[in-house]
């Protein structure tokens, strides 16, 4: 089962609408990128799907066991080692205690960090921290994985490696991934479908399917990136004009 959003709106107390009547269907096993300029409500949308925010109106349907979540800044607990951060997710998810260590080792190996389990988050580089966060979200063992600009703060080389790894993990696990980003090239590289959000309030402006052929053809990918960037710039300017007028 995937995720369904029907006429979902969100506003914070005393503010305008953040998300306006958004309807979308994300199929089971699909990799969808939600693309939008800063402040368009993409993270709020993800928080609603995760159950961290309640919609003001409309309804949404997520699998019974909820969704795993990967935060923008890893959000690892600094007093726990990499292995213990993952182990805590297993423990809170009710994973049997006697099998936990083996599962932690398995997950660390999956994200290429088998050697760094005992390191504390501050002893790891930004890319390694995000790998631990990815392993922790996989430890939650839920079909839906929500990712809130998880690679935004990383350097280009590390980000590139993690893109490769995430695609490969998605292919191995068949999870439904909803990946929020403001990076057009990242969205094209990763997703099978891109939902472009308008700026404030967030509505779906465009939906684009990304075929394997388009992804692997630099010319086609660049043309689409230019097109989507133009849309986002237009939205950003509109938002800035509205903010200045308000």
């Amino acid at each position: 089962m995937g995720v369904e959003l029907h006429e979902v709106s969100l506003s914070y107390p005393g503010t305008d609408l953040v998300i306006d009547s958004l309807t979308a269907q994300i199929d089971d096993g699909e990799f969808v990128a939600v693309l939008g300029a800063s402040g368009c409500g993409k993270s709020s949308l993800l928080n609603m799907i995760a159950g961290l925010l309640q919609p003001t109106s409309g309804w949404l349907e997520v699998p019974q066991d909820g969704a795993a979540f990967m935060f923008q800044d890893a959000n690892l607990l600094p007093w726990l080692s990499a292995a213990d951060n993952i182990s805590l997710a297993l423990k809170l998810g009710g994973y049997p205690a006697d099998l936990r260590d083996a599962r932690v080792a398995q997950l660390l190996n999956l994200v290429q960090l088998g050697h760094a389990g005992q390191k504390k988050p501050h002893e790891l580089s930004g890319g390694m921290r995000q790998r631990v966060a990815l392993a922790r979200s996989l430890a939650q063992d839920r079909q839906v994985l929500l990712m809130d600009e998880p690679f935004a703060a990383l350097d280009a080389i590390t980000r590139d490696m993690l893109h490769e790894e995430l695609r490969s993990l998605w292919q191995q696990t068949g999870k439904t991934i909803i990946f929020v980003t403001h990076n057009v090239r990242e969205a094209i590289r990763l997703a099978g479908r891109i939902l472009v959000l308008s700026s404030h309030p967030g509505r779906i402006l465009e939906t684009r399917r990304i075929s394997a052929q388009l992804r692997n053809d630099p010319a086609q990918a660049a043309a689409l990136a230019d097109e989507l960037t133009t849309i986002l710039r237009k939205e950003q300017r509109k938002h800035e004009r509205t903010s200045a007028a308000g």
Partner: protein
Amino acid sequence: MSALAQQASEPTVKADKLRLPKTSLDSVLAPVITVIVLLSLWQIASWAVPIRSDLFPGPGAIVAKLPEMLDNGSLLGAVGTSLFRALSGFLLAVLIATPIALLLAHQPLLRKGLGPLISAMQVLPSIAWVPAAIILFGLSNATIYMVLLLGAVPSIINGLLSGIDLIPHQYRALSQVLGADKRQHIWHVELPAALPGYVAGLRQGWAFAWRSLMAAELIAVGGSLALGVGSLLQRGRDLADLPLVILVILVILLVGVLIELLCFAPVERKLLRDRGINRTGGKNV
């Protein structure tokens, strides 16, 4: 997979260890040299200023008082009594303050009502409680413990509360997405996250406990009460023995600082180091 193999060799960060030796040396040497300079100036002044030596004793006269106080056992006995009272009272304060702080952190209405009162108690000098405690409990240990608890408990409560207040909002979101219930959130996330604030509160609570104890022992003397360090101050005053008074002041200072250095400072350092928070010497003035 070659890219991934490259990733495995990403450097890990060990920045917090870089400045440690120099910082440790500085933090020991600077106060030691300052104390030596101040003691020298004091001794020179006591020789140079034409005032009676019993009214302006130099460090030499204070040190000369020490063997007498050690021989008759009154100093060590008093230090032992005060330390026992301070440590047991402090432990009791921790046991009382911790659940109250947790309750207030999770009951906003209760906190709105009691919070200002607790902060006000922190401002009130503990010595103000001594007469009331004597009226209630007479010259007994209960008087001493009442004053000590009223001094230490508010600091510990406020320390834990501010530790909890400073927990990043994202940790709560993390607990929620990991499926933690309230008890699991408090145990696995909230308490460990609040630990630095809690330890800072304990540190301040200890300072308040020690000060309150001295205030109580200074006034509450006699009855069934054993002689504490604070009471020795009163004895020095009764005997107009300024070297004794100054010696006792130095002992009070020394005990307070030693507990701070031997117990709280290492715990705080370890906590900060474990979390990758690098406190460099000279910047936290």
